[in-house]
């Protein structure tokens, strides 16, 4: 059962709370237990048609010919939709916030870039008739060399997966092929560390496998608008994505959603809505497009597979003095949300630890695999897996208890994080202490007494001198051999490379409480309210 540890940080919290810590019935519970909660597919519309798509059987191929002649004559077929029927047949999800280039068609035109990519949509009176027509579509593929491995995709001469990104990497700020994090001099610290441990971690793609598959029903409304019942997790995001792809104002649509049969990140990609609406536009009838289970599992976007190299330097006394990371996010054939995952990942390094020298290169790579998307902490989860495996291995290497090892290296309030923001409200030490207590795992007194609010800041708040990347790098200054808790007072703050931005206008709001949230956009790296 849930246990609130009110003894921890008690003075920081108003405990006169009306809801937190008390059981409250969910507002949708009665609907759930009576089966009356209304999911997208629980709407029955008169004269509804069914949409199914022809999917690529090749991972990478040029499309020589798409012949739908026989399918058009198949019983029950109302409309065949091709790429040329889609008003704006190129999109990327985060274009709504001006992030990334349009790189993915709703229906493939000249090329397919992953196995299962939609090529043609068929709208028919029944699912069966749609399936029968699919079997009659002839696609002439000219197979192209495919690349399935993130590092192979970066090699010179690798097949170009997606022409929008000819180097097989997402482009940040229209220039950079990866996210870079530099804090201190990791190479110098590694050179003088007592132990260096380098490891490779490889994740698999993970399918969300929601019990309800992705789907949407779109129907013409009486006023020229379209009502859309959808499984989307991101209703307004989906509205705007459809408006863009179908090139109409977003008030053309009345989206109804909110009750989702499991999403976990797998229902933000707006895969079914645009084609269902287009089907309704082209036929004047309600159209349903719902994934079958095999479609969901094979072609629904998974959590991306990450490959992560971690190289750590650790001293005999247990202090981690350097962490150098190279990570490759497998975006699959199109961007979807992996570009953003890489940004989140870079900001997360080196994990919840204060390490004085951190170096990170994070790549978002295109391969001929199913496009990856959001899933529960994506960008961070896999990196945390790698980092925590690494922490166990490092503890073992220096002969320390893994819990104590984490407390020793944990970040504390006032510490400078590698992405140059001060650590606030840190609680790793307390989490480890409670975990040890619950697991009846003995830790020594000094670690039991440690606190996230003690011994942080000071020299640990300083941004260490950080060499800029260059091919002929000068040797590291000697003082960088020292570890964070004994940093000599001579270390200066890193000079800003650019003139500081003008101070923002004073906020009309009252000053935020010390534990209030400050909005931070990890995509733009700017604070906004």
């Amino acid at each position, binding site marked *: 059962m849930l246990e609130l540890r009110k003894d921890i940080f008690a003075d920081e919290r108003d405990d006169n709370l009306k809801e937190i810590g008390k059981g409250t019935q969910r507002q949708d519970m009665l609907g759930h*237990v009576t089966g*009356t909660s209304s*999911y997208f597919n629980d709407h029955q519309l008169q004269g509804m048609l069914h949409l199914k798509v022809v999917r690529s059987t090749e991972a990478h191929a040029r499309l020589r010919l798409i012949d739908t002649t026989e399918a058009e004559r198949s019983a029950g077929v109302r409309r065949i939709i091709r790429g040329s029927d889609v008003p704006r047949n190129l999109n990327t999800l985060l274009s709504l916030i001006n992030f990334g280039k349009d790189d993915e068609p709703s229906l493939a035109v000249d090329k397919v870039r992953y196995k299962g990519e939609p090529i043609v949509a068929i709208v028919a009176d029944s699912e069966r008739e749609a399936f029968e027509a699919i079997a009659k579509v002839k696609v002439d593929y000219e197979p192209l060399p495919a690349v399935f491995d993130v590092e192979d995709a970066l090699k010179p001469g690798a097949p170009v997966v997606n022409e929008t990104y000819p180097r097989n990497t997402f482009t940040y700020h229209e220039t950079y092929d990866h996210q870079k994090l530099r804090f201190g001099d990791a190479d110098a610290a590694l050179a003088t560390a007592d132990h260096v441990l380098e490891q490779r971690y490889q994740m698999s793609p993970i399918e969300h496998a929601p019990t309800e598959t992705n789907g949407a029903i779109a129907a013409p409304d009486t006023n020229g608008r379209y009502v859309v019942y959808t499984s989307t997790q991101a209703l307004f995001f989906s509205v705007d994505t459809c408006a863009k792809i179908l090139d109409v104002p977003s008030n053309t649509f009345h989206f109804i959603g909110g009750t989702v*049969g*499991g999403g976990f990140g797998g229902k933000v990609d707006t895969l079914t809505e645009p084609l269902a609406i287009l089907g309704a536009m082209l036929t004047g009838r309600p159209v349903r497009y719902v994934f079958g289970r095999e479609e969901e599992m094979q072609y629904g976007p998974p959590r991306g597979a990450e490959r992560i190299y971690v190289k750590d330097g650790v001293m005999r006394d247990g202090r981690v003095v350097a962490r150098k990371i190279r990570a490759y996010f497998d975006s699959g054939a199109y961007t979807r949300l992996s570009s953003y995952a890489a940004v989140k990942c870079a900001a997360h390094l080196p994990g919840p630890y204060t390490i004085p020298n951190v170096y990170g290169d994070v790549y978002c790579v295109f391969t001929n695999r199913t496009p990856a998307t959001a899933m529960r902490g994506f960008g961070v989860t896999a990196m945390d897996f790698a980092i925590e495996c690494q922490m166990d291995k490092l503890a073992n290497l220096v002969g320390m208890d893994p819990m104590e090892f984490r407390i020793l290296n944990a970040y504390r309030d006032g510490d400078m994080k590698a992405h140059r923001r001060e650590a606030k409200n840190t609680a790793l030490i307390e989490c480890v202490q409670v975990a040890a207590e619950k697991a009846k795992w003995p830790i020594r007194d000094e670690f039991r007494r440690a606190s996230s609010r003690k011994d942080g800041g000071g020299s640990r708040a300083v941004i260490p001198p950080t060499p800029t990347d260059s091919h002929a790098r000068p040797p590291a200054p000697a003082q960088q051999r020292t570890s964070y808790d004994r940093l000599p007072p001579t270390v200066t703050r890193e000079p800003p490379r650019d003139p500081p931005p003008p101070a923002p206008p004073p906020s009309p709001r009252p000053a935020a409480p010390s534990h209030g949230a400050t909005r931070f956009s990890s995509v733009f790296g700017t604070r906004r309210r």
Partner: protein
Amino acid sequence: MPKIPVQFRHNGRDVAIFVDGGTNLLVALRELIGDMTPKFGCGQGGCGTCSVLIDGELHLSCLTLAETVAGRSIETLDGMKQGPNLHPLQRAFADHFAAQCGYCTPGMLMAAKALLDRNPAPSRAEIVEAISGNICRCTGYEPIINAILAAAGGRASA
């Protein structure tokens, strides 16, 4: 192609529908009778969210050819409430937070009912076995098991 007439009992009420050849019971219930409580999850027998009782036995409606239920009695979650009152299982599911997204809940409740109708005081292991064909992807199995235990306990003491 002629439609096939099928008559059966649906939650205690006689119904008659015309189905196309090959129509499964899930589609028949949802699209021809309008009972939206059984859900489509996989169409393969892997998830259990379309579970219904046929003559008191747990079946997967998506794998049942509609015309094979002629003359039989079908129970779905739609018929579980006892008048205006929740069934003890529904009450226990609500009280024990045994639903998150709610999509597996109809199947879970039918699997639980199939168990309790036959075995009013099941062990925890029997409950686990009884819902082993039903997948909850929000991973809330423990509250579901606790709810079924509570419903069984409540019933036994009543």
